[in-house]
C-alpha cells in the first residue's frame, strides 16, 4: 500500500494539485465567475429534450455501471440539470441504474429536478429503475426499456464497459438522440460511432460547470486547467532532464536532472 511518506515528493505533488484546484474554487466563489470554452454536445441538450417532448416520448438517463463512484455521482449531477429542463417541458425522465445505492440517490436527484422546475406532480418513482448490478443483465434490461418506451433521447454518462455498444446501437435503432460521456477511454470510439454527441475525456467533468454556470464548479475547472498545465510542465522538464541525463557526463548537473526525474518515481 502506497503512503505519502514512501515518496514524499509524490505525496506533496498530489497535495499541490489539490491545493491549486481548491484555491481556484475559492477565488471564483469570491470574484467574477470565469468562463470556459464551448462544449458542443451540451448545447444539444435542450434541442434533444424539446424534440422528445414534441414526439411525446420519454428521455432515458443511465449513470454507468460502476456503482456509487465518482463518475456516477458526476453523471447524476449533470442529469439533475438535464432533468430540470425535461421537467420544464413537462416530459418524462427514465433513470436506469445498476447499483442499489444509486436508486436512492438517483430518485432524490430526479425528484429534486422536477420539484425545482415547479412540476413535482410529474415525478414518478417507478421511472427510477434498478435493473441489475450484473453487467449484461443490466444491458438487456436497458435495451428492453429503450425498445418498449421508444425513448426519444438518451444520456449515457458514467463508467461504461462492453455494454456501451449494445445500449447505444439499440438507441440508434429507435432513432433516439444520444449524448454520451465516459471515463473509460476504450469505450469512447463506440460512443463516437453510435451517438450524436460525445463528451470526450474530461469534458465530462466540465459539463456540470458548463450547464450550471455555478462559480464553484467553474472555479474548479479553472483549477483543473492549472493542474493540467503543471503536469504538462513537469512532463516537458522531465523530458529535457532525460535528454540531459543521457548526454551530459557525470557531474552536478547530471545528478540534479536525475534527481528531478526521481521525484516522480515510486
Amino acid at each position, binding site marked *: 500500500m502506497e503512503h505519502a511518506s514512501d515518496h514524499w515528493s509524490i*505525496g506533496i505533488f498530489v497535495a499541490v494539485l489539490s491545493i491549486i*484546484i481548491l484555491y481556484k474554487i475559492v477565488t471564483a466563489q469570491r470574484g467574477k465567475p470565469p468562463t470556459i470554452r464551448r462544449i458542443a454536445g451540451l448545447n444539444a441538450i435542450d434541442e434533444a429534450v424539446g424534440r422528445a417532448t414534441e414526439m411525446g416520448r420519454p428521455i432515458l438517463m443511465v449513470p454507468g455501471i460502476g456503482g456509487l463512484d465518482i463518475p456516477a455521482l458526476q453523471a447524476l449531477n449533470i442529469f439533475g440539470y438535464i432533468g430540470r429542463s425535461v421537467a420544464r417541458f413537462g416530459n418524462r425522465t427514465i433513470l436506469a441504474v445498476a447499483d442499489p445505492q444509486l436508486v436512492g440517490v438517483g430518485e432524490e436527484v430526479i425528484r429534486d429536478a422536477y420539484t425545482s422546475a415547479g412540476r413535482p406532480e410529474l415525478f414518478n418513482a417507478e421511472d427510477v429503475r434498478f435493473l441489475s448490478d450484473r453487467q449484461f443483465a443490466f444491458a438487456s434490461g436497458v435495451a428492453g426499456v429503450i425498445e418498449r418506451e421508444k425513448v426519444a433521447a438518451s444520456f449515457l454518462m458514467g463508467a461504461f464497459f462492453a455494454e456501451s455498444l449494445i445500449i447505444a446501437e439499440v438507441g440508434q435503432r429507435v432513432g433516439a438522440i444520444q449524448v454520451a460521456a465516459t471515463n473509460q477511454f476504450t469505450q469512447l470510439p463506440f460512443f463516437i460511432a453510435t451517438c450524436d454527441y460525445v463528451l470526450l475525456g474530461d469534458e465530462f467533468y466540465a459539463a456540470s460547470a458548463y450547464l450550471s454556470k455555478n462559480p464553484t464548479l467553474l472555479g474548479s475547472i479553472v483549477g483543473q486547467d492549472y493542474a493540467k498545465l503543471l503536469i504538462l510542465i513537469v512532463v516537458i522538464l522531465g523530458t529535457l532532464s532525460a535528454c540531459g541525463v543521457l548526454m551530459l557526463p557525470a557531474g552536478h548537473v547530471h545528478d540534479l536532472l536525475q534527481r528531478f526525474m526521481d521525484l516522480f518515481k515510486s
Partner: protein
Amino acid sequence: MRTLFHSIPHTHPLYYVALLATVAAGIGILALLQALPTRLRRPLIALVTFLGGLYYAAEFFIPTGWGVHKGVDGNFLSPYFDKVANISSVLGSFSIGLGVFSLIGMHLRIASRRRESWGFSLMLLISFVAMTIFTLLNEYAGKSVVIPSVAGHSSITNHDIYVVLFNGGLASLDSAMFALIGFFIISASYRAFRIRSVEATLLMASAIIVMLGQVTLGSWLTGGLPSHGPLAFFRFENMSEYILVHLNAPAQRAVTFGLALGVLATSLRLWLSLERGLYFDQE
C-alpha cells in the same frame, strides 16, 4: 476495535444483553438524529461526508511509522484498513433492498394488478424466487435435497436445478448478451467509417489497419513484403503494432491525466461539501 468492544461467546447470556443494548442504542441514535433541529442537518451531513473521506486521506498522508511499532507497515491508521473496508461493504450491503424493492416491487405491482403484459413480470418474479432459493440451498445443503423421481426419470437434487439455473440460465444469457456486440460492431463500423472529414477518415484508416493486422486476411495482403528491413514496416501487423504502441498510448495517457484531475476535483468538492448544486443543497 477489539480493545474497545470485547467479544462475548454467543452461548453466554451476556451476549444477548449486549446485542439488545446495542440495538437499543442504535435506535436511540436514530431517534436522537431525528430530534435534531432541522438547520443542523445539512452541517451534520457535511461532517459525516468529511469523516467518511478523512480516514483514507489521513491514512495516506500521515507518515509511515507514526504511532505504530517498528516493522508494522504504514501508520497507526493502517491496521484498520481491512476493518474499514469490511464495515463499509457490510453497511453498503444493507442497501441491496433498495435495488430489490425497486425491481421486484414494480413487477409485483404489474403482476398483481394484471397490467399490460403482466406475464413477463410473473416470469421475472418466478426466476427471482427460484434463483434465490436454489443459490442458498446450494450453499447450505450441498446436494442433499433430493427431489423424487418424476414420470420415470431418475430423481434429481437441488444442485442439479441450481446448475440448470446458473449455467443454462444466468451464464448462457450473460454470454449471449455479450455476443450481441459481435453483430452490433459490424453495423456500427459500416455507419461510422465514412470519409466525411479528416478526423473521420483517420479514425477509419487506423481502425482498418489495426483490424487487418490481426487476421489472416491482413497477412495475405501484405505477406509479400519482406519480414525485415524498412519495407517490413508496411506489413499490416507491424503498422498495427506501431499505431497501438506509439500513437494510441500517448493520446490515451493525456486523456487519462485529464480524467484523473476531474476525479480529483470532483472528490475534493464532494469531500469538503463545496458542491452547491443538486442533491447536496437540499436539507
